[in-house]
């Protein structure tokens, strides 16, 4: 252990030259096969391809937002990126190292550097541990530091919680407070990457905004990279530098937040953006919402998965699988007709 004091704060420990991306997913697929318990329960014989050939990369201190509806595979993608779910094929690289091929020691180190904030803070905190123990746990697990150095107070301060909460149990916390404890646990080991699954789900508007402020601040102070998984477009619109849109296990569009919002190239992205309830333009400004619902990933449509719901679909979309192609620098889209979509004007 080269870092003696486990205190939080300061720049990311062991910052490396910026050459390899912080996180890189290479043609990643996750299939839940029929002999898995989950598939058996679902009465399924064919297997579910939850993540289907996804390639993405993000750099240090970047916020990558992965957007999609339930069933799009975004949570499975997050779990696979952290080696919490085995990839069926493809590769996850963390700072250049192949995560799937890591030995035990390397995995331990990886678990310090890349952490997850789970969606439901109450179910991810042990109900029988006080906040102080919950915050000490990461250090204990990683054998860091003696008892008196555990910076519980500092961690609470970092997530703007009063120190008196150290003696509380999770059920005594509000949703926003529990979420902050989850974030403090994630920050304890000064990770380089935080994967946040729906960080504001279930919170009141003011509490949600406070969490977003906190994430912004911590990123500025510590240079942490975030992979934010959400269905809330306003969250990624506010927080993310780059956005990847997922539909039925595949990435259908990527680009900077501005690009994706201002000129969506995929018809599904257009539909998503048109569905955001708009405070400013009001209710009458909205166009017809996209028809239908996301199909079951057990039995995805042929060709382009979106074609049954797509207003731009042509015959070829039923048969041809669109590949992710470079539409502009830093901009990818998987749609046979993206040029027509782009010239169809603004969706809102």
């Amino acid at each position, binding site marked *: 252990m080269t870092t003696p004091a486990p205190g939080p704060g300061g720049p990311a420990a062991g910052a490396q030259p910026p050459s390899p991306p912080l996180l890189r997913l290479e043609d990643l697929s996750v299939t839940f096969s029929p002999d898995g318990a989950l598939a058996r329960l679902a009465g399924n014989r064919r297997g579910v391809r939850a993540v289907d050939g996804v390639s993405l990369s993000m750099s240090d201190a970047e916020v990558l937002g992965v957007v999609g*509806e*339930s069933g799009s595979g975004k949570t499975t993608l997050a779990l696979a990126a952290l080696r919490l779910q085995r990839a069926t094929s493809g590769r996850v690289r963390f700072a250049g190292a192949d995560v799937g091929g890591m030995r035990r020691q390397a995995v331990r180190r990886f678990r310090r550097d890349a952490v997850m904030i789970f969606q439901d803070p109450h179910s991810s905190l042990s109900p029988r541990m006080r906040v102080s123990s919950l915050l000490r746990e990461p250090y204990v697990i990683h054998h860091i530091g003696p008892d008196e150095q555990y910076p519980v107070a500092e961690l609470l301060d970092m997530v703007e919680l009063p120190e008196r909460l150290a003696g509380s149990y999770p059920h005594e916390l*509000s*949703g926003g407070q529990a979420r902050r404890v989850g974030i403090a646990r994630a920050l304890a080991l000064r990770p380089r990457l935080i994967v946040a699954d729906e960080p504001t789900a279930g919170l*009141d*508007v*003011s*509490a*949600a*905004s*406070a969490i*977003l*402020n906190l994430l*912004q*601040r911590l990123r500025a102070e510590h240079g942490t990279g975030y992979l934010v998984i959400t*269905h*809330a*477009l*306003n*969250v990624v*619109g*506010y*927080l993310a530098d780059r956005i990847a849109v997922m539909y039925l296990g595949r990435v259908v569009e990527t680009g900077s*937040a501005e690009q994706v*919002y201002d000129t969506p190239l995929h018809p599904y992205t257009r*539909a*998503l953006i*048109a*569905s*955001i*309830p*708009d*405070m400013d333009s*009001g*209710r009458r400004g*909205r166009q*017809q*919402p*996209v*028809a239908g*619902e*996301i199909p079951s990933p057990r039995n995805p449509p042929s060709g382009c998965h979106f074609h049954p719901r797509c207003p731009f679909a042509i015959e070829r979309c039923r048969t041809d699988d669109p590949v992710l192609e470079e539409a502009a620098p830093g901009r990818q889209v998987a749609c046979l007709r993206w040029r027509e979509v782009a010239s169809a004007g603004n969706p809102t």
Partner: protein
Amino acid sequence: MASLNGRPAVDEAVLDIQDLAVEYRSRGSVMRVLPGVDLTITRGQVVGLVGESGSGKSTLALAVLRLLPANGKITAGRIVLDGTTDLTSISREQLRRVRGEKVAMIFQDPLTSLNPTFKIGRQMIDVQTAHAGGRVRWPDRKQFRQRAMALLHEVGLPDADQLMGSYPHQLSGGMRQRVMTAMALSLEPELLIADEPTSALDVTTEAQILGLLRQIKASRDLTILFVTHDLSVVAEICDRVVVMYAGQVMEQGEVADVFREPQHPYTSALLDAVATRSHRGQPLNTIPGRVPSLIGQIKGCRFASRCSYAQDVCRAEEPRPVASGSSEAVRCHMRDPQSGYEHAGLPSAAAPKVVPPP
């Protein structure tokens, strides 16, 4: 009281809630969740009831149909339906008729509201059977079945025949919410109470359900009370908005007016806290502190402890609702010329605005 608030004449009101007080009792303590709420819902409107968790918005919605949990009790006030029936004092049998036939309700989670062990068709028919007196003969049942199918069609479920034979768990969240809505419409209510009907849905499905509610509202001349924590949904679908905080109505008025020029500091704070793309790079506004405990008496304005404009008068006296700007009833000393609130030294934005007529 009614004339003070500038409320519409009572004969237009589908629902007139007067000084409604609700308490919850648990382990010897009494929580006064609603201390005395006045609210009028005018026929043909969509009224958004917004507030954070703990604001009492769901309690208010449940109290209307007398669906409060066992430890909840209406302790004072009246809930007048159609200007004639007081829902707080009617008999069990009358209440049974009101539920469904006059006022229907849809909930956030249709899966827990639908019976998991019966097929959709059976449940759609049972609603009609129950309100036809329980004992019906075969020709009626056949008619009910046809009606159920027509309703499923109306809520955008074209494959009604197959759907009638499905169990709730076989449907998606959006389909279940449509089924719930069809069921709620089956007795042709005047008022539909929707408690967070889209909160658990994906954004494209939410857009579809909001579109559906707008469409049935127009085609059936429904009045809708829409309970939600999501201000953007209110902007999307509601005509009027009622902002609740800690059991009290803090502000109400036309959505466009209230959202453009909120008169209550709490409403402004809520509107400012919504994260949008245009806030990129700036910290978002938040409301410090927490909702006060509703156990025991609260002195002064309920929002005072979190309000950046609070003065001594706010902590001492409860504000009364006054008309201010384009909002019809605002509970804030700052907006009440007779409150003794000291305006000198405040930023001009905080002073009551005079809105020019459109």
